[in-house]
């Protein structure tokens, strides 16, 4: 990897970029891994009033005071605002109270549909992925959501073969509304190479920015469809020192960001 890698890793950049999606005052449905760090970074910088909701059955108004391997780890419980049942956390999301959700994906397509279930025929798959977890619930019920993944041609595909967590379906206008989905849908795909953003009201993702040290050609070559590029495509702002400092405080051994 090129020069900037010296200052931060690809994962650290992704966390920083993801944290910028969180607005102050948001109730954030925090998924595992990088999103846990993104919430911590945002809460310690531009979103001091953002709360985190965890499907395991927790609400917090600040990051845990120690490293988390999972959202159910003891440090995430101590000081929680609410320790409850998963169905109660889901109730808040079904009511439209969750402003932003994060979902990890194995495969995403141009319309933001995620596949975390099956590669190939579900009755005898080439690859069986772990499944939805809370992903489908977040994709359907949260007001807006973001996914993070490695930027590879086999991951960013034209159309996923199996929709675990729906984005904008077939991409036709009003697909979510017609299909009865309550939430707003995906707003961005944050990858190891850049940021893809969906237009207001949904549709097809277009390239918004390319991460430092990478170029447009690299992004297009590693995307499984003819990716549209924003007229104002720019370089992704690098992580600031405060952002990196926060990331390294909450992931001291680089469990999530240096492996």
């Amino acid at each position, binding site marked *: 990897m090129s020069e900037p890698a010296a200052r931060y890793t690809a994962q650290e950049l992704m966390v920083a970029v993801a944290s910028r999606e969180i607005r102050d005052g948001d109730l954030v449905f925090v998924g595992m891994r990088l999103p846990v760090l993104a919430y911590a970074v945002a809460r310690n910088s531009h979103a001091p009033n953002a709360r985190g909701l965890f499907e395991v059955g927790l609400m917090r108004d600040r990051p845990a005071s120690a490293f988390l391997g999972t959202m159910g780890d003891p440090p995430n419980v101590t000081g929680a605002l609410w320790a409850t049942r*998963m169905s109660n956390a889901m109730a808040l999301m079904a009511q439209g109270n969750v402003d932003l959700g994060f979902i990890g994906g194995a495969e995403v397509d141009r319309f933001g549909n995620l596949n975390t279930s099956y590669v190939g025929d579900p009755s005898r*798959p080439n*690859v069986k992925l772990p499944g939805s977890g809370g992903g489908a619930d977040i994709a359907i019920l949260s007001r807006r959501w973001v996914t993070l993944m490695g930027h590879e041609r086999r991951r960013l595909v034209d159309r996923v073969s*199996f929709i675990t967590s729906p984005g904008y379906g077939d991409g036709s206008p009003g697909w979510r509304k017609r299909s009865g989905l309550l939430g707003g849908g995906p707003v961005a795909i944050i990858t190891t190479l850049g940021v893809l953003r969906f237009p207001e009201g949904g549709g097809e993702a277009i390239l918004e920015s390319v991460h430092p040290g990478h170029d447009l050609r690299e992004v297009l070559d590693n995307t499984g469809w003819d990716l549209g590029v924003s007229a104002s495509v720019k370089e992704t702002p690098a992580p600031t020192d405060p952002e990196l400092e926060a990331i390294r405080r909450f992931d001291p051994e680089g469990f999530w960001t240096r492996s």
Partner: protein
Amino acid sequence: MSMAEAIESFLPDGSTVALGVALEPLIPFAAGHEIIRQRRDDLNLVGPISDSLFDQLIGAGCVRRVTAAWVGNVSEGLGHCYRRACEQAIPRTLEVRDHSNFSISLALWAAAWSVPYLPTRTLLGSDILRTNPDLSVVGELAHVDAVRPDAAIVHVQRADEQGRAHAWGPLGITEEAGLAADRVIVSCEELVDAEVTLSDPNRILFPETKVVAVVHEPGGAHPSPVQGYFKRDHAFYRDYAEHSRSREGFEAWLHEWVLDVPDRATYLQRIDVESLRVKEHRASAPADFGFE
């Protein structure tokens, strides 16, 4: 009652059993390992995310069907035994009934309330609706059919001999799993007097009428965390992930940690328990149950 007796008495082959219902914490690994030692067969595993316990039971050949939202290793990723079973029928074919976290909860609430299904606004637009026969779309709602476990197995911080269990921290789908199940097997860090559990009836998880066995099994949730007792053993999950990449590696791991281990006490001797034990205690503020 010992774990061996509890599994022998209350979990016959072919059972539909809910495990790991608190998600990442309080996973009854000791119970799961005893199920493997007793070579239970044709189980239908029910749970939200299971965090590698389901992967171990599947790899050991105990499982006919999985009814879950996610099967893998939360901090490490894929479940390799789960993949081998689904992709290559190793060690046997596995039927998968995919759910989301919300829908598996609703399936259990439907059973708890004795209705054939509950309607929901989640799952709409997901192909999970196409592959799981327990899910359907009716009008503008998805219908989630009831899932009634024969048994639910939970690990908790403390319980008494009569089956009154206290658990704290996030509870996931623990409550609906216990209410929906015909019977509940409880394993606990501490076996306490009834005066402790009855001092706080709001913290009692299930009606004692559901509980058929209470097993005093300290450390029974390792490597998963137990609030106030044990931290999560992240390295152990990583070690399992690496060994289970190959079928042979998994078999070796299974012998070392399950098949060649007589019981949980022996298992714990092989682990640095002290490094995982929670040492700084934080007592909750008491509630006053006085009445006169």
